[in-house]
Structures are given as C-alpha cells and as structure tokens.
C-alpha cells in the first residue's frame, strides 16, 4: 500500500487546481447559484470534458483516458475545493461507475464514450422520499421493458440525459438504465440547500428502460456503486474542507480584534487546529479508500465507509467553523463561506447520510471479525 500520490498524479493535481481556479472561480460558481434556471456551468463542463477528466477512469477502448481511480481521486479533491457547479459526481462516480461495474459490453459501448466526450450527463436515482432507502422499501417498478414510479430527489436529475434507477421487479430489486429525454419521464426541478447543483423529482410513467446487470441483483450493485462513490466523494469533501481551513487561516492572520490578529487568540488557534486534525484523519482514511478502490481490494466496503464517515464530519466542522472564524463577514452572501457550508450538506447526503455510513462501518467491522 502506497500512501502518497505519484509525481504524475501530483502534476495532474496542479493542472486541475490551476484550471479550476480560473474556470470554476467564485464568480462562476455564483453565476449558477444566483440563476434559478441554471443547473450547472456548461462552459466548465465542456472544459472538463476537453481535459479528459470525465473519462479519466474509463478504459481507452471505451473512449476514456484509461488512467486509474487514483487519478479520479486527485481530480475529485480539486473539484471539491473549487465547489465546481457541474454534475461530475453524478455522471462519473455514480453513472459511469455503475456502467463499468454492471454494464453489458453493448451498454458500455453505447454510454462510456459519450460520457468521456462530455456528451452524456448521467445520474443515479435511488431515493424515493425522506429517510434512508432500504431494499424492501423500493417502490419504482420495472416490468422488463418499462419503468414506473417516482424518484425524489435525484441529484443532477434536472440536467442529466440518462439515469441509473433502482427499481423492483419480480426477481427482486434491479438496476435499470433510462433515457430521461422521453415522453414517459416528467421532471420537476427541486429547490435545495445547495443551489449550485441541480436536483429533480423524476416521475416515470411506463418509460422505456433496460436492465443494468442481473435481475434481482440491483440492491447489491447499488451498494457497490455507493461504496465507490463514497470513496470518491470523500476526496471532494476533503478538498472543500481544506479550502475552508485555508480561508480561515488567511482571515485569522489578517483580521484584527483587540489590536491583535484574531489568529493570535487561542480560541481561534484551537478551532483551526481542530479543523486540521479532522481533515488529516479524513485524508488518511480517504487514501486507504482510494487504494482499495484502485486495486479492487476486498477492503473497499470497510475503507469507503470509514472515508465517508470521516470526510462528512470533517467538512461539516470546517464549513461551519470557517463561517465562525469570519465573524459577521462569514454570514454574508458575498463571502464564499456559505458556498462550502451548503455543499458540505449536499455531499454528506449525496451517497447517503453520515449516520447510515457509520452504521455500515460498524456492521462491516462485525462482518470482518466474524469472517
């Protein structure tokens, strides 16, 4: 197990950071934030596609760069740092991963090159209402050819072209692939806590759909997709946390109260040190997750759960304490603190809530010890 990234990966990170600093600036993020009709930044999406990021982990035979998951982790951290307003996680960590995990060759050939080229936005539709979804509670119905039911909310469901939907059929729960641009699909845009990203309620009425993976294997596949997504999202969360910490450090050095930089007060020092500790704990767990992901190791379910639990907690802490460090300024719309505070909550829920993942982590520990 190697606990650092290679020089090539670090070069990719630098390139990504420079690109995003320019193209996913606070101004660009705010353009999506302030425009109710905008679901994502199309120009940024195009740029990301041109750099090959969408296909970073997609094999060359399917139009990708054929790099590994580690490269994807590197990109994820930068995307998180930049609060990029694009459907990257939905398309890459969920949709493409599901296809690579469970897709038939024809399905991969159909979708993966288009994803890599930035021509197909994907999403993952699991949730059907408040509360953690469970295998027994899935109500969306697949009859072998068509899909009916309601999915709410679907992250990036407002701008996606295709969805992987968790639905039930006679054989049990299955994953199905659905073209969202058809008569049998109605979309309603939802207002969410993070308006820099889209979300929708999707209603399927006899929508044409096809199975992805084996019938009745959908729940296990969904869990596997979530594990992969969790390991990757952890890097977005760490990138966001790190950005919060850096903002807070910069402000604490320059802001004066009582004729001293506020960073000279231990109340602030300890706060920032706590943020750092939380990030480093999350980072180490996330590296372990990245290793497990990139080597298809059996440890992935455990490592992904640990990474996600640590990263969700770190981001929440860093986002709220960054606001606090900024005092009144931190509570304004104009200062970026709230962009992170909003995104932190979206990412903490996008692959399932922290409490659910902590429960999974302990269950997986029990399983590991029983084995």
């Amino acid at each position, binding site marked *: 197990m190697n606990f650092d990234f290679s020089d090539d990966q670090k070069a990719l990170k630098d390139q990504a950071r420079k690109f995003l600093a320019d193209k996913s600036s606070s101004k660009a993020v705010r353009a999506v934030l302030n425009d109710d009709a905008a679901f994502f930044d199309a120009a940024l999406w195009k740029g990301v596609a041109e750099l090959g990021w969408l296909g970073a982990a997609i094999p060359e035979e399917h139009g990708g760069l054929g790099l590994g998951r580690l490269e994807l982790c590197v990109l994820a951290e930068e995307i998180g740092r930049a609060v990029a307003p694009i459907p990257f996680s939905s398309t890459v960590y969920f949709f493409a991963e599901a296809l690579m995990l469970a897709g038939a060759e024809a399905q991969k050939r159909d979708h993966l090159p288009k994803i890599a080229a930035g021509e197909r936005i994907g999403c993952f539709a*699991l*949730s059907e*209402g*408040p*509360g*953690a*979804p*469970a295998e027994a509670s899935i109500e969306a119905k697949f009859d072998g050819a068509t899909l009916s039911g309601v999915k*709410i*909310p679907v*992250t990036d469901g407002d701008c996606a072209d295709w969805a992987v939907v968790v639905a039930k059929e006679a054989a049990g729960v299955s994953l199905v692939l659905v073209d969202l641009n058809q008569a049998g699909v109605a979309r309603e845009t*939802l*207002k*969410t*806590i*993070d308006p820099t990203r889209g*979300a929708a309620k999707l209603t399927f009425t006899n929508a044409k759909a096809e199975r992805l993976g084996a019938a009745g294997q959908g729940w296990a596949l969904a869990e596997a997709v979530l594990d992969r997504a969790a390991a990757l999202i952890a890097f977005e969360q760490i990138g966001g946390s790190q950005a919060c910490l850096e903002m807070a450090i910069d402000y604490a050095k*320059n*802001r*004066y*109260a*009582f*004729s*001293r*930089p506020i960073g000279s*007060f231990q*109340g*602030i020092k300890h*706060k920032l040190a706590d943020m750092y500790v939380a990030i480093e704990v999350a980072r180490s767990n996330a590296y372990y997750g990245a290793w497990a992901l990139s080597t298809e190791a059996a440890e992935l379910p455990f490592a992904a759960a640990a990474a996600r639990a640590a990263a969700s907690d770190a981001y*929440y802490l860093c986002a*709220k304490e960054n*606001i*606090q460090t900024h*005092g*009144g300024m*931190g*509570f*304004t*719309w*104009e*200062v970026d*603190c*709230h962009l992170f*505070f909003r995104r932190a*909550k*979206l990412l*903490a*829920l*996008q692959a*399932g*809530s*922290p*409490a*659910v993942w*902590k*429960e999974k982590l302990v269950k997986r520990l029990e399983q590991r010890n029983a084995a």
Partner: protein
Amino acid sequence: MRRGARSIVWVAFKSRRFKGRRIWISTTRPRKPSFALRRALFSKPIASPKSAEAERLSRKLSPKDYLAAAKDYQRKKAEAGFAGITWAKEQGGRALPPIYAVIFNSEEAKFDAPAHPFSIGLGMCVPTVIAFSDEATKDRYVAKALRGDEIWCQLFSEPGAGSDVAASKTKAVKDGGDWIINGQKVWTTGAHFSDFGILLVRTNPDVEKHKGLTMFIVDMKAPGVEVRQIHQASGGRDFNEVYFTDVRIPDQNRLGEPGMGWNVALVTLMNERLAVGGSYGPDYKEIFEFAKGIAAPSGEGALIKDEAFRQKLADWIVRAEGYKLAKFRTMTALSRGQTPGPESSIGKVINANQMMDIANTAIEAQDLYGIIDDPAYAALEGAFHQSYMFAPGLRIAGGTDEILKNIIAERVLGLPQEPRADKGVAFKDLPSGR
C-alpha cells in the same frame, strides 16, 4: 391547568444558605399572577395560534405588509397592557416582577406573533434610553416605542469593530449645540425599517479606546444617514450597512456623559445577552415529534427508537431545560433588584449551537431527501433548513461563542485576562490590521 400558569412552579425559587453557600430551591407553592392579568392573557388572542398555516401566511406577507402587521400587533399588545410588563408605570409599563414577563412570553411563543421587529429596540435600545436620559427625552421616545409606532435599532458594530466593539471609529465632533457624525456601522439588524437607533461613536481618539466613546440617539431618517441592506448567507436581508455623512445630532440626544459611551454600551450589551439567548428554530420538542415518523439509520424501526438518537435527544432536553431554568434564576435575581451577571451568557453559547445541531440531525435523518429545502416538500415546511442556515449567524450575533466563553472564563471564573495590546495606548495609535 394552563401550561403557562404551571410554569410558575418552576420559576418561584428561594435562596437559602446551605453549608455557607447560597443555593436555590424551588418553592412548591406557585405565585399567581393577578386575576385580571391571567384573564387577559388567555382570552381573545391578538395573534393567530402557532400553526403551519399561520406561519405559511406570515411568510407569504411582503416585508412591508409584515411590518404593518407587526406594528398593528405591537399596538394591540400595548393597549392590552402586555408591552413593557416590567417597565416602570411612568414609562407606560406595569411595574410587575419579571416573572410576569416570562409568563407572557411563554404564552406569546405559542402564537405566530409578529414581534421580531421590536425585540432589539424594546429589549436593548429603549431600556438604555430609559437608563441614561432625562424626563423630556424619555417622554418623547419611550411610549411611542412601546406602542410600536417607532422602531429602534442598535448601531454598535463596525467593519473593524465587532467583538472589539470599543474600537468603533465612527466619529462625532461637537459643533455648537450639535454633534456631527461621520463613519460607518455594519450588521445593523432592522436598520432599513427603523426610525431611531442608539449609536456608539468616538468623540475622543486621543485617550484609551474605552474612554473616548459616547452614545447617542440617532434619527434614522435624518439627512446624511444612508442604509444599505446586506444579503446574508441564509438568503434573507435582515441586516444592513449604515453610512453617516455629516449627520447632525442635537446634544439633547446624548445618552450619558461624553466619554462615558462604553458604560452605556455595557448596559445595552447585558440586555442583549439576555435577549439573544432564546431559541429561534425547531427545538427538541419538534425533533422528538419528527423522529417518530422517520426511519432510523439502521433501517430498523423509527429514529425515535434509535439509541444514538435518544442519547442526543436527552442532551438537547437537559441543555434546553437547564438554560430555561437558568434564565428563571436570572429573572428571580432581577426581581430582587440584582443585576443579572455574566452567567447569563450561557444561553447564547448553548442555543445557537444546539439549534444547528438539531437542524443538522433532522436534515441528515432524511438522508438524500434532506437536501430539499422547498417548503412544499421539506419537513416542517423547511423550518429545519431555515434553522440550519440561520444558526451560524446566531453563533456570531450579540457576541460570538468565543467572546462569550472568554467572558465566562474571565468574569465568572476569575481566570487571568489575556495580555492586552490596547492598555494605556491612545485609540489613534492602536494597530488595526486590514
């Protein structure tokens, strides 16, 4: 028995000496408010009972209509004798012990009463005016404020002076019988609809910072006052930047002696910490109800049956109740004519964080669905989400968590003060950073 009446049992404390220490014991026999007051309290409501419907309606009002409704409510409240319950009779109050205000407030909290626009003015500003001005000034302002005809704001914080509010730079220069004000205040809640404000300014930059301040009453409609609304992180526009350009204030509107502004400000701040302690969002009772109808993270049964959640809920209960009871102790001290000490700071440290924690737990318990903050879909019509987005502001407003903990450590616990860079230095020579 009505809930409000029962709560008296809790607040009737007696102090006794126990092993040389003063302790508080609750008396079993409730002290009853006068019959007339009780009847008035529970008959003929002047605001709608709290319900999802009422809140939806009040949210739908435009800011202008909400303000009109608020003024109307305040006038009726004053006419019914419920404004300024503890204030002196000369000030239009009823001179009743604070317990009566507690009872009224707990009853009022059950209604969707539009009382917000007055909380800063009547809770902090006007009491300061009463404490530091002559009869003519009180006659001019107090009754009108109490009736809701005029609204007040607190103009203390500046871009470079928040926690360190004594570093205020906005300056006042004497010109005949007037003072001329130039500078900027910021984060002024409600300045955009206020008629008057209490304004902390520097009248002498050549002495130590606490000694060169003076407090004034300022007419917010005076020439040279410019108010700009600030868009806050939670989306609303409740607070403002206020610019002063050659604004004239008659010397008559000075509160306290020139150079004594800090002492005046301390009275306001003490009231502020008492006032900014309450909970503004869903509390443990709401999440208790909510937890019955949502699945536990394990997927087995409802959240309310989840051990980890139950432990958290227990913590919220003891902190909320502990704070409430501590507040009653403060009230008891007030009713004995003692001033509430810095121990009342605990409310602020508890409430904003707890409010955020409860909101966060409720949002996360909904799993991905928790991202939806549209009132049409969200639990409690989005109240948890509003709370989540507003709580960070409450951790800062009225003294940050860190400042309040410093106050507890230094003034309550008597720990040594931080070394101070501003002792013995003239204000104009102090370092101020960016």
